[in-house]
């Protein structure tokens, strides 16, 4: 570990992993409880389409991806109230639309495929210093936001009707939640790729909910599991010369399998 920290390049990767974990892992508890797990996958497709669009028109990819990602999340927050369709069908359409747009745009964009692959499979090894500090700021603010607005986020997710009768502006809080998630996901995808972003947005929360029966603790357990996976994944990838992003994802999945097993054993006891 000490050897790892002494290498500036690896220190950089370690920080990127920890920042992404700190930003997304606590959020993943709500992603799982709100049953919007595939939002991460769908929005990754939208981000890919945005990059393809930017490459096609020779624009800066990140601002376009950020704008489209946040817009997608905000649209989902508005459509979540629909009485006609369950949210998952809207997420499915977003996924299909994003994927189709990526393919269509990529065929017309020079060097588009290389950029898209970068987005989908991540480049935690090449996170620029400016992005690293942006991640520290945004993900730090996101942690504070989740702590300060804990009761508003809880009632908006758990029992929105009760929230409305208590005079809490549930729709506004849902928009804030989805908007914050949009910003976090856009930055995380840019930094570590879609696969790690998606997994970090699901696995720590799912694992934590298997391990603890208290919501407050679930956020802390998710944060701990996310950070442990990020650090452990970077160390293992360094030790065994493995792709870093995929190693972290693998570790998150293994930790989930263990947590699920523990949860099942506890339920049976």
């Amino acid at each position, binding site marked *: 570990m000490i050897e790892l920290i002494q290498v500036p390049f690896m220190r950089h990767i370690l920080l990127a992993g920890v920042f992404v974990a700190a930003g997304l892992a606590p959020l993943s508890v709500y992603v799982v409880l709100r049953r919007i797990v595939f939002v991460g996958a769908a929005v990754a497709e939208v981000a890919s389409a945005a990059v393809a669009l930017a490459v096609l028109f020779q624009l800066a990819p990140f601002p376009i991806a950020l704008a489209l990602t946040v817009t997608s999340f905000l649209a989902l927050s508005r459509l979540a109230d629909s009485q006609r369709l369950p949210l998952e069908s809207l997420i499915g359409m977003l996924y299909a639309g994003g994927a189709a747009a990526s393919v269509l745009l990529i065929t017309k964009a020079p060097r588009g495929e290389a950029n898209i692959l970068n987005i989908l499979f991540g480049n935690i090894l090449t996170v620029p210093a400016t992005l690293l500090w942006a991640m520290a700021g945004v993900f730090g603010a996101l942690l504070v936001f989740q702590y300060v*607005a804990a*009761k508003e986020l809880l009632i908006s997710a*758990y029992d929105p*009707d009760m929230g409305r*009768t*208590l005079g*809490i502006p549930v729709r506004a809080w849902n928009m804030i939640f989805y908007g914050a998630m949009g910003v976090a996901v856009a930055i995380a995808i840019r930094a570590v790729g879609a696969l790690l972003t998606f997994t970090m947005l699901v696995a720590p929360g799912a694992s934590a909910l298997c391990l603890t029966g208290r919501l407050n603790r*679930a956020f802390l357990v998710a944060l701990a599991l996310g950070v442990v996976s990020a650090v452990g994944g970077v160390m293992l990838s360094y030790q065994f010369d493995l792709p870093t992003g995929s190693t972290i994802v693998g570790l998150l999945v293994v930790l989930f399998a263990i947590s699920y097993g523990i949860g099942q054993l506890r339920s049976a006891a």
Partner: protein
Amino acid sequence: MATELIKTRKLAVGYGPRGKVLQGIDFTIERGDFLGVMGPNGSGKTTLLKTLLGLLKPLSGTIETHAGGGGRPLFGYVPQRESLDTHYPLTALEVALMGRFGRIGMLRGPKKADYQLAHACLKQTGMDARANKPYRALSGGQKQRVLIARALASEPEILLLDEPTNGMDVSSEKAIMELLSELQKEKQTTVVFVTHLLHTIERYAHRVALITSDGSLIVGEKSKMLAPDVMARAYKEK
């Protein structure tokens, strides 16, 4: 102080102009009322309740409210307990504490006094001993008591309950309805409950609002409302 708490005039409720469920509703909820809203399944009871709560906009007509402090009365809403997701790892106390959220102030956490009040409401509903138990592990009747405690924790002027005894065994049903009767008698809490169970209305309600098969509402004293000719208006085939 006016004794009227809520008064509707020519109220129509539903989901959009093509989804009109009830219309021409004129009725009053008095302070201290114990009103049972009855009708067959799918007749629009929950839609009416949600409109009174402000969760749905009236399609037409008006709802006048006369709260103690002026403005909108403070509602204590008890939803159908099946509507709450049991994946959330919350204790009975954490669920009851939600009733305080509207009074705590934005971006502030609950204080000691809020916890004390939530405990007191759980005690009132006979659930204080189970305050730290997981809500999802409670029986149907216990969950209902916790949800009533949550509604009481908001210090409401009126309690609105959606099918509070649905799916319960006889003893749980009796316990819940007697709890509501006590609250109404001892604290003068206004209680409005929705049910499709005739025997619950028969035993506990003071006044009855009956949804008829043509989508209107008739309201009156229980003795008159349970007459066979009146009941037939709700349960005859359309």
